[in-house]
């Protein structure tokens, strides 16, 4: 191919010169060029190497169906592989290179594969390298695992960068009455017709310019004026936007390319935007893709579709060759031949049909185009470029080589395949249309219609009429909520004047040719026949055996030819063979666009307590627990985590500690039936909880397994304040809502999450009451007599801040939980801390909180993991025998009452100097069970006991292991430690300190 830029014409901006790099070489193009058109204009014919055989490939189309010109853009972390040069807009500074080749696409050592092409047919690698006899007889596919990496390295496409993607992406949502996909004559007419009816219309076009086919066949109206006209009609136009999939309820996925065409995009712009559009009606004016023909060496650089040749000339001002052969089976290529002739090329036209109306033949012959009827391309001579075309003549039943022509490019039109992929996503089966030799979309009951070439309409006037009809159908459907179907055949003058010849392959009966069906995956006509011979008669099996229709083009170019050859081999018609179903996406969607902004710091939202800044200002090291940011520990200068948490726990036990417990779930339960509601969801009685008292409660799931625990405070007769664990707050809230809405809608109760409304501060330790006394006006309010264990008070602090305080303890010490409106949290914490310091107190974080609760054997989410019953957690007494509650029936299942179930225990190391790990297995000395007899959920150094302790579960509980040898086994770290099973209440088991 000797492509060159013609001096005039096209929609490019010749005033705007752009410099770009191709395989390290600096080249120039113009504004409006694609990378493909610029490469052609610079005479670059070999731009890629094929998937398997490494055959040289050139530009084969001018659109998204491209299989030859797949390139890699950018460098390092900006590297983007498998980009279609035919759709990549050229910009100043663009860097591109060929892929799947070494050292270059011009000279690729991998092309040695082509020499062995006859051995590398479909299935070769699996047949040859799996279960190699006799080495692998009876041993499976071990050797394949070794071979595979070399095979994969030799074959393939571009390589993705392994560096983090530096680009930004985002999601977006929108709604409209009518979505029109495609801005060609049909799409434009449909959009205008729908807008005329007062509908809100969105028109999407995957190209950078509006116009579709008009950009190739009629450039009289500029894309800019088209845009202005459409927008003046109130139509919302989105260019560079691909509708890649249609999903349930007419949800459409769109991919908008925002900055892929910009040299230096602003940092605030995303690279691509992933749209979720919800239209009420969809018009698919997606056009049709021109097919190739299968003939010898039909993949050589210089072979492309006829319409692509016309597009490069009329849109980009590039003449693809000086000696051009146009080969066709239909009328559409005649105009191509004429345009190329007028541009100065020597054109020969091969028409496979023996008879064509003189109206058509006169047009080309009158200007000197060399026309041959009943003629078709047979084989190409030339390796990295077309040198000569061998031409076959038909005798009506077979093809025979007749003559040859010297040429530098071959433009092929084997018919047109309407783009019906999007309807296929909705499960609409394609139907073979014999007259047009193509698949058309079958009927659908959804509010979707097809217009223009996508509906098999080949004339511009027919497309416009079809588009207008589609716009009117959309209006009727939306207004009358019913769908009026329109058959494409009802459009007059919608087809060519001469019928298409259903031709897919040209070959001589006794001659083998390398004729490709699917260029992207190197699937040849022989591969299809081989698959048939080997028994792959289902089209789905054919696809998987040969890989026909896979990869990024999804069968846009090769599927119909492959089906036709399969049908011929099977002695059937194409409709009898069936068709594979197109699945989304229509064209590739980058993983980055799927992620949108949800990466890095935006991967998930984090949750901060109102004390967050205060905690950090006071030296907290933070840790993520779920979504919450919580203080882990407050190190003093030079202190390690271990030193800090031991100090914090020790100080709290002996003086006072303050801890941010805001993350606990908090739910307001209000209503006349609130007591009854709580009585039903908790295992223990709540009906008679006095006002001003809190009670520890456990709720079960329906299946009798523990869901969550916490305290609930009775504020008034009808008003409760429930706390939940941090981990299960959302689950409990949803559960309560579900119960009220589905099971007990008769109960007059409202539940409201107030987790964010209150800041919570635990004041724990023997000096905790003294700390509070210093901050309240009336110290009598918090005396032991007036404010006993499990008491609840609304108290005013000295500065007038209203607090809600309960005397409850997670640490086992005299302790209070102080709740204040969240915005006042930092202020109250500061007041309490100022006082606590005077008592030698400390701030303590999650690590020390864990130490204190493990010493007491208090359970958390680590223990309540969805497998544990009340009895397992040593809380069996919490189940009231006098009432029914959620889970009460199923909790009495025999399986849940077995005595050998794992039960909560405390764990000491036999050697008190030893340590052991959370997550370890507990197992007896003679145990042979791989999963052991239990597990350890949490461990800590206990300052009170002076050695390592843990809690966990072991089969049968403590009594079952008295005087037996038990080991903590950590197979991951290869650590076995002999341990002693003790009561889970390891410190102050009688709870004396709580009542201090």
């Amino acid at each position, binding site marked *: 191919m000797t492509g060159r830029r013609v001096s005039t014409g096209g929609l490019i901006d010749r005033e705007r010169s752009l410099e770009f790099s191709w395989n390290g070489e600096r080249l120039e193009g113009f504004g409006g060029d694609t990378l493909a058109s610029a490469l052609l204009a610079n005479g670059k014919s070999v731009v890629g190497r094929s998937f398997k055989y490494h055959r040289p490939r050139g530009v084969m189309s001018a659109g998204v169906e491209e299989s030859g010109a797949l390139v890699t853009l950018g460098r390092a972390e900006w590297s983007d592989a498998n980009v279609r040069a035919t759709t990549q807009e050229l910009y100043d500074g663009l860097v591109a290179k060929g892929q799947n080749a070494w050292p270059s696409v011009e000279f690729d050592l991998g092309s040695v594969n082509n020499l062995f092409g006859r051995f590398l047919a479909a299935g070769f690698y699996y047949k040859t390298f799996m279960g190699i006899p006799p080495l692998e007889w009876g041993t499976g596919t071990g050797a394949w695992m070794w071979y595979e990496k070399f095979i994969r390295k030799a074959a393939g496409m571009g390589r993705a960068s392994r560096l983090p993607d530096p680009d930004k992406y*985002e*999601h*977006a*949502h*929108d*709604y409209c009455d009518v979505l029109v996909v495609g801005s060609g004559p049909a799409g434009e007419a449909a959009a205008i017709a729908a807008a005329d009816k007062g509908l*809100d219309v969105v028109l999407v076009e995957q190209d950078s310019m509006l116009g579709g086919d008009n950009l190739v066949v009629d450039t009289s109206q500029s894309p800019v004026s088209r845009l202005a006209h459409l927008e003046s009609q109130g139509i919302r136009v989105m260019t560079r936007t691909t509708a890649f999939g249609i999903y349930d309820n007419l949800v459409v996925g769109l991919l908008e390319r925002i900055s892929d065409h910009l040299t230096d995009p*602003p940092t*605030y*712009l*995303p690279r691509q*935007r992933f749209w*979720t559009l*919800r239209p009420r009606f969809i018009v698919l004016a997606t056009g049709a893709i021109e097919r190739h023909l299968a003939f010898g060496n039909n993949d050589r650089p210089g072979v492309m579709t006829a319409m692509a040749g016309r597009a490069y000339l009329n849109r980009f001002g590039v003449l693809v060759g000086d000696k051009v052969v146009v080969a066709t089976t239909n009328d559409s290529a005649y105009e191509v031949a004429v345009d190329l002739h007028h541009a100065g090329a020597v054109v020969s036209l091969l028409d496979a049909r023996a008879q064509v109306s003189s109206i058509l033949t006169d047009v080309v012959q009158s200007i000197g185009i060399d026309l041959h009827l009943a003629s078709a391309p047979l084989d190409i001579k030339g390796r990295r470029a077309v040198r000569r075309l061998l031409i076959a003549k038909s005798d009506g039943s077979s093809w025979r080589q007749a003559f040859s022509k010297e040429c530098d490019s071959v433009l092929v039109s084997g018919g047109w395949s309407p783009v019906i992929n999007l309807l296929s996503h909705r499960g609409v089966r394609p139907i073979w249309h014999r007259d047009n030799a193509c698949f058309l979309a079958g009927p659908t009951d959804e509010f979707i219609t097809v217009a223009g070439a996508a509906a098999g309409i080949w004339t511009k006037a027919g497309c416009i009429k079809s588009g207008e009809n589609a716009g009117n159908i959309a209006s009727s459907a939306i207004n009358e909520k019913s769908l009026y179907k329109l058959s494409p055949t009802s459009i007059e003058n919608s087809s060519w004047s001469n019928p298409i010849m259903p031709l897919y392959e040209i070959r001589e009966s006794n001659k083998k040719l390398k004729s490709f069906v699917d260029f992207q995956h190197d699937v040849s006509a022989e591969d299809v026949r081989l698959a048939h011979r080997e028994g792959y008669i289902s089209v789905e099996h054919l696809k998987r055996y040969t890989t026909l229709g896979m990869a990024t083009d999804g069968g846009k170019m090769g599927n119909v030819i492959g089906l036709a050859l399969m049908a011929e081999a099977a002695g059937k018609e194409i409709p009898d063979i069936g068709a594979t179903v197109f699945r989304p996406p229509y064209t590739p969607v980058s993983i980055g666009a799927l992620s949108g*902004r949800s990466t890095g*710091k*935006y991967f*998930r*939202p*984090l*949750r*901060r*307590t*109102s004390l967050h*800044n205060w905690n950090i200002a006071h030296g907290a090291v933070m840790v993520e627990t779920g979504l*919450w940011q919580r203080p882990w520990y407050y190190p003093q200068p030079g202190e390690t985590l271990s030193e800090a948490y031991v100090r914090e726990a020790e100080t709290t036990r002996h003086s006072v500690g303050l801890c941010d417990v805001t993350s606990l779930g908090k739910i*307001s339960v*209000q*209503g*006349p039936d609130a007591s009854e509601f709580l009585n039903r969801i908790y295992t223990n009685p709540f009906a008679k909880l006095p006002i001003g008292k809190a009670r520890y409660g456990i709720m079960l799931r329906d299946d009798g397994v523990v869901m969550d625990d916490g305290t609930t405070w009775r504020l008034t*007769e*009808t*008003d409760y304040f429930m706390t939940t664990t941090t981990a299960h707050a959302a689950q409990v809230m949803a559960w309560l809502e579900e119960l009220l809405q589905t099971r007990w809608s008769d109960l*007059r109760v*409202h539940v*409201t*999450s*107030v*987790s*964010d*409304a*209150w800041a919570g501060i635990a004041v724990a330790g023997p000096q905790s009451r003294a700390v509070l006394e210093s901050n309240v006006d009336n110290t009598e309010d918090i005396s032991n007599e007036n404010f006993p264990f499990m008491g609840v008070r609304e108290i005013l602090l000295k*500065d*007038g*801040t209203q607090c809600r305080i309960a005397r409850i303890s997670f640490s086992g010490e005299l302790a209070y939980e102080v709740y204040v*409106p*969240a*915005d*006042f*949290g*930092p*202020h109250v914490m500061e007041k309490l801390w100022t006082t606590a310091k005077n008592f030698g107190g400390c701030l303590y974080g999650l690590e020390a909180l864990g130490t204190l609760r493990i010493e007491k054997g208090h359970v958390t989410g680590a223990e309540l993991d969805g497998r544990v019953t009340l009895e397992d957690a040593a809380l069996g007494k919490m189940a009231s025998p006098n009432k029914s509650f959620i889970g009460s029936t199923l909790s009495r299942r025999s399986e849940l009452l077995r005595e050998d179930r794992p039960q909560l225990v405390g764990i000491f190391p036999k050697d008190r100097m030893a340590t052991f790990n959370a997550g370890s297995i507990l197992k007896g000395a003679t145990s042979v069970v791989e999963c052991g007899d239990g597990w350890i959920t949490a461990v800590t150094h206990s300052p009170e006991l002076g050695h390592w302790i843990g809690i966990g579960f072991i089969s049968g509980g403590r009594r079952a292991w008295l005087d037996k040898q038990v080991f903590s086994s950590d197979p991951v770290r290869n650590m076995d430690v002999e341990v002693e099973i003790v009561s889970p209440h390891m410190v102050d088991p009688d709870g004396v300190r709580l009542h201090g």
Partner: protein
Amino acid sequence: MVERISALIGHYQFGHFGKEEQVGVVLSELPNLSLIQVATWPENFQELSFQLAKSYGIKNAPEKGKCAAIGDIALLHVEPLKWWCYGPLAPLEIPIETGASLDISHSRAHVRLSGTEAHVCLNRLISVDLRSSACPVGSIVSTSLHHVGVTIWHSKDGYELFVPRGFAIDLWDILKATAEQFGLDIA
């Protein structure tokens, strides 16, 4: 009285961000939110609707998903049996047999998104139909923004976002990052 501390304190940076020479979106926080939730029982719905309308001096309480704004106070009908009373309204005395009230002023941060591109910006993060035909001024929507449940009131001044206090900073950050492409003023 102790001063309330905003969820965004230390994170609020005034100025212009992103696209230059254009202000498509204005982002601001309205501190010291006053928000009382009023909930009723199905059989008392009409009674409490009437009582609320009377308190606000309006003929009828707003329908579900709508808001009645009078000066600096507003009544938002956020759920079938729940209203939010926004602004400095005198406390309502509601007997428990009729309904329940709950002060949730500290539970949320009040963020306003305004400007010519506010609805476009918001639709980059929420899936609700914000076209004027579907979400006119006075509409209330409950939806998810960056995985977090938020309530949005389309007021005459823009979109009033009531976001859970604990998530306020991260939601603010993603709103800011999204709005920069339109030209963002933080006021």
